[in-house]
């Protein structure tokens, strides 16, 4: 089986089979990342362009490493060095990159829909590496991969996503994928951080964290964007932390084998207590490690190298 799509923009339209294929493909690359020589020739001669309009170290590095381990040529392109500041539209920038025969464009952009707009305008494959508050599909895939690595099945799995769901592309991608795969998704946070009508997607919303965490198998913490305090989303870091911070005590409300996840970078002592972040139930660094294998799989599938 192969992926028929040109682009990976969003998990919302993917089938369970497509998601499963992506996770299984990551398995075979996970093995590569464990070797002494962590490189295969799968994408030799292909060009991957990391087009990042928003600062990002970990996602860009993860994609770069993934592409290099597949032997692709990798170009990193960031707006501060580009003509974007001169008023060139996203589409023109991308068409210029495409004219240099880029096979895959990995796009990070602050506007929701930027990846979709780009994909409609270029022949290269586009991988969404985060567009505004919309989606961050490869992050959710590596989250799924990490859950699966712990031997958990998705059907009936109880997952709590805690924090500012309204501004989180990570949350949206996970909500789409987890519900599709049969998990029970709980969204925990103050009502100021829940997007309108989110429950219509099939998730349950909790404003009380203790209730939301009861018996869950996975606790997925979201990063608190500290600058939002001034935007009337929450009164203070102190109060947010008291109401929605993950402490060891709260972890005990969850299933005894529950795992703790975080897409990073973490605010220690704000949304997550240091002892929880460093505990045995934390899989935060596994997520980072798996990110490379998952992205190798995605690059491989989207390059058409398997068809």
């Amino acid at each position: 089986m192969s992926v028929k799509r040109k682009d990976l923009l969003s998990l919302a339209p993917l089938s369970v089979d497509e998601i499963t294929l992506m996770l299984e493909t990551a398995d075979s690359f996970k093995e590569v990342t464990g070797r002494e020589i962590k490189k295969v020739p799968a994408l030799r001669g292909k060009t991957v362009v990391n087009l990042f309009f928003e600062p990002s170290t970990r996602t860009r590095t993860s994609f770069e490493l993934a592409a290099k381990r597949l032997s692709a040529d990798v170009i990193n392109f960031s707006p501060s060095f580009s003509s974007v500041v001169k008023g060139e539209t996203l589409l023109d920038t991308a068409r210029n990159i495409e004219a240099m025969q880029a096979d895959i464009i990995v796009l990070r952009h602050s506007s929701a829909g930027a990846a979709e707009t780009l994909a409609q305008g270029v022949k290269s494959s586009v991988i969404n590496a985060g567009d505004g508050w919309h989606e961050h599909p490869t992050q959710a895939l590596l989250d799924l991969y990490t859950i699966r690595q712990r031997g958990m099945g998705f059907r009936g799995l109880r997952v709590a996503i805690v924090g500012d769901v309204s501004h989180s592309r990570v949350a949206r991608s996970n909500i789409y994928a987890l519900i599709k795969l049969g998990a029970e998704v709980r969204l925990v946070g103050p009502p100021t951080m829940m997007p309108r009508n989110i429950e219509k997607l099939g998730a349950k919303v909790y404003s009380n964290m203790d209730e939301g965490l009861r018996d869950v198998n996975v606790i997925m913490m979201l990063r608190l964007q500290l600058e939002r305090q001034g935007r009337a989303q929450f009164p203070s870091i102190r109060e947010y932390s008291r109401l929605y911070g993950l402490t060891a005590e709260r972890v005990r409300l969850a299933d005894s084998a529950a795992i703790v996840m975080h897409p990073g970078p973490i605010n220690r002592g704000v949304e997550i207590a240091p002892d929880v972040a460093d505990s045995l139930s934390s899989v935060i660094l596994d997520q980072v490690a798996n990110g490379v294998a998952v992205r190798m799989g995605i690059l491989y599938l989207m390059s058409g190298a398997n068809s």
Partner: protein
Amino acid sequence: MSILIKGGRVIDPGRFVGIADVLIDGGKISAVGPQLSVPVDTRTIQAEGKLVLPGFVDLHVHFREPGFEYKETIQSGSAAAVAGGFTTVCCMPNTSPVNDNQAVTEFILERARLAGLANVLPIGAITKGSEGKELAEIGDLRRSGCVAISDDGKPVMNSLVMRRAMEYASAFDLTVVDHCEDLHLAEGGCMNEGLISTELGLPGIPAAAEDVMVARNLSLSELTGARLHLAHISTAGSARMVREAKARGILVTAEACPHHFTLTEELVRGYNTHAKMNPPLRTWTDVQAIKEGLRDGTIDVIATDHAPHATQEKQQDFTEAPFGIVGLETALSLTLGLVDEGVLSLEQAIQKLTSAPAVAFGLKKGTLAVGADADVVIVDQHEQWVVDPTRFRSKSRNTPFAGWKVKGRVRTTIVGGRVVFEATPVEQ
């Protein structure tokens, strides 16, 4: 030269409906009736099977001049207007500079005179620079030709300033027009807030951002007795409040745009920038409420909010792209769609494009009464056509209706007794 429009179905809303000839002489309507006898040297336009209507009056257009001539000029906007059957258009003051003084008003009127197509009537700003702080010289604006005042697009947030503007404007019998949007509630939003904005990860504009300002404006109108006109209402809440306010005798009129009674927020999916306008496309429930408001008279006027933007502006990503679509050349067909659907009678529909907007601003337009300015449009109600933006007279192409098969087309437009638009050459 006189013009005889022969044998058409005349609809002069509230005054006359029937087969008749219309005789134009000296730039005025000189007679309406069967088998009119005509002076020599009269051009005859055969209108059998066609509708003969007062020229349409659009209370809400953006002609972008001065300042944004790459989007539209008064010349190109006027050409689009008459091609769409609009003989009178009221242009919003959000130009650069803002139309907040006599000089800009006179410039616009002069450009309109040079274009020589439609009657272009400026709307002056409420506040200097439309900054919402100090009142513009509203008396001067009135004297130099403004027909209403509005800070469209930059609604006056300070309720005291709005109160004073209404009080002051009532001295000149000027209608105060407000684009109802609480800028704090709407901040950063680029589509209707709801499930779709949640799914797309786009910042939303809640219906409440419009509703709270409609409520405020109605209260202020009640307080001051000023004549209030609500631009482009789009929510069920607005329609409900206006209905209630009218029942209590508040002097309010309201307009709706064709896109708000035709399209829903679903169109935004795929991040379609031609579905980005302000107020945003709303839900199916809102669309039904707007139609009901039009049907029962709560919403008096159909206006286009014709908002041209250059192609490259609409090619930006969704959050960056500007709000607005062009509307002058599609409004008639979309309005006739409401007649086909049974929402409005044909006479009601025409009234909302002609006499009702004229009344809202106190204009002597929108009628075929003897002695009125000879602004007339001849329409083929049944002609089907496909919307092709490359054929627009407007400079801009930003429409969500490209490729739509629609019905009803303007054949001839007459302004002040002069034929200013003909779809195809007419036999003389």
